[in-house]
């Protein structure tokens, strides 16, 4: 009796149950998306955003004298150190590599107006996968020293605007202006280009 009625009306119990199941499954899946969205915090301040302002004094980033001002007189030709702007050492995007070369070593695309007496500064974040770059000093010819990232061996030429001279890095490292102020150094500009991995 009951079954007969159902077929006449077109909607059977079986169809109804199936419809409810499909609808609730669709609802469950839809809610999954908002759940996943909650679990993936937004990109606010994503990537490397530097907070360096012109006028910030350079301080050593590591070692025994970490936090104290960089001494210009302590660096000779072919030396490099990792530095931070003073008081802003918690942001990894602020890490900078300060290099001492000869004024005459610089070639385009180095921005010579952002250097001072052979001091040139670049972001210390490799543009490949975000490791901190290292300094490979050429003791025989200090002007030919290079910046290398030891993670995947990307190499950059500090005398030529940190252009990529080997390895997988896609773009040069951005330069930042510095000038000598007494025996210490201060930043004079923002980064000339994007810093950190370009993904």
């Amino acid at each position, binding site marked *: 009796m009951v079954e007969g009625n159902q077929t006449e009306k077109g909607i059977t119990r079986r169809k109804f149950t199936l419809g409810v199941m499909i609808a609730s499954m669709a609802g469950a899946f839809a809610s999954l998306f908002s759940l996943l969205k909650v679990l993936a*915090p937004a990109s606010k301040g994503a990537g490397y955003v530097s907070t360096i302002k012109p006028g910030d004094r350079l301080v050593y980033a590591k070692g025994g004298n970490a936090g104290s001002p960089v001494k210009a007189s302590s660096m000779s030709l072919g030396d490099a150190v990792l530095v931070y702007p003073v008081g802003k050492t918690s942001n990894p995007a602020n890490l900078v590599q300060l290099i001492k070369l000869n004024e005459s070593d610089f070639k385009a695309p180095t921005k010579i107006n952002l250097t001072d007496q052979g001091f040139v500064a670049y972001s210390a974040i490799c543009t490949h996968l975000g490791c901190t770059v290292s300094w490979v000093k050429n003791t025989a010819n200090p002007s030919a020293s290079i910046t290398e990232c030891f993670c995947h061996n990307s190499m950059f030429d500090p005398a030529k605007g940190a252009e990529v001279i080997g390895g997988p890095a896609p773009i040069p490292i951005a330069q930042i202006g510095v000038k000598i102020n007494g025996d210490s150094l201060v930043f004079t500009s923002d980064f000339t280009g994007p810093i950190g991995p370009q993904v």
Partner: protein
Amino acid sequence: MIYNWFEERLELKKFKAKFLAKTFPTHPSYLVGEIALFSFITLVLTGLFLGFLYEPSVKLVSLFGSMVPAAYASVVKIDLMPMGMIIRRMHHWSAMLMISSIILHLMRVYFTSAYQKPRELNWLVGLSLLGISLGAAFSGYLLPYSQFSVTATSIAYYMVKSIPWVGDWFSRLLFAGPFPAIGMVPRFFFLHVMLIPLGIVALLGAHMTILVKQKHTEPRTNIGRPEGGNGKRLIGIPIWPEQAVISLSFFLFLLFTIAAIATYIPINPIETYGAPAPGTPVMRPDWYFLWVYGFLKLIPGNLSFTIFGGKITPETIGGVIFPGLTFLILALIPFFDRAKEPQNYNKSPFARPFMTAFGLGGGTFILMTAVAGYIDVLHISPDRMLVYTGIATVAVWGIVYAVLSAVKKKSGL
């Protein structure tokens, strides 16, 4: 008497007849998969110990007068405890052993064509187990939060982020926000001790259930042996008691070996790497990630383009497409090298020149990309290494194929 009490309630005899009578082939190469299983058990046991002591947090605490993340401090404290360092080394060594044995097990199955009908499904489950084990190993990298952990995780973050279209969202889901997020260590802790182990247990269960249902393949030497009744029965020993005794003694031997290695050989010495600090030292991943690491070094930096709005960068190619393609090819193997009838005997690798050459050639390629991880030490340029990799792969492939084909022709297999 106690036995009877249980027998009356649980019908143990029936259970034994149904499940414990499964036959195991006796060839030693069949024990490699068990090493993986036992390594996993060792990982769980040692992980339980570490779980009581580890603190998943990056909040700065004082350790010997300097401020370091709590996660790092807790691992240093584990190392200072009696037995602590041995347990932590055992954990890391077991992980290496687990992945090594999974790869050897995969090679055994590949070169004897045990993946053919009806075992394609279990090949896929096995591959998933390899993938998830690599995930387990990787998520464990971050937890001590040393300089090494942070560098490795940062590299992985940008690799995930370089996935076209969904990379940005997916990297934030996995790493709890843009790197380095405060919530990253707790999230990786959850993945490492809960989600991934549950996944491994589920996949292991499926792997074993399918194995029991389908039975092992048999060594070719068993063909025609009268005990097998013309291939109707698998020749070997039952799970209970013979195989169980072998497995148990094997497990204990393995536990002893891991403990011995852990006692004498350091691994992941986080005190040497130190707490996270500016600057990246020369560091290489554990051997099972060397292939991806090495391949990343080989890709020229200017190789990047956009397709359908998705950005393909060198990182995408090295970190996403290359490993993805490797797993895809492995997954498709049983569907290209097919058998019409269900196969229950291993085939000789000498009788299958193409597949054997394909396997050895592919293996050579992966090996060479791992060697490429050392180009800075070997003083080889990436371009030249790429050429060497190509030559070695083609040479191994070609020579193996030519030799095996000739042997096959001559012996008339």
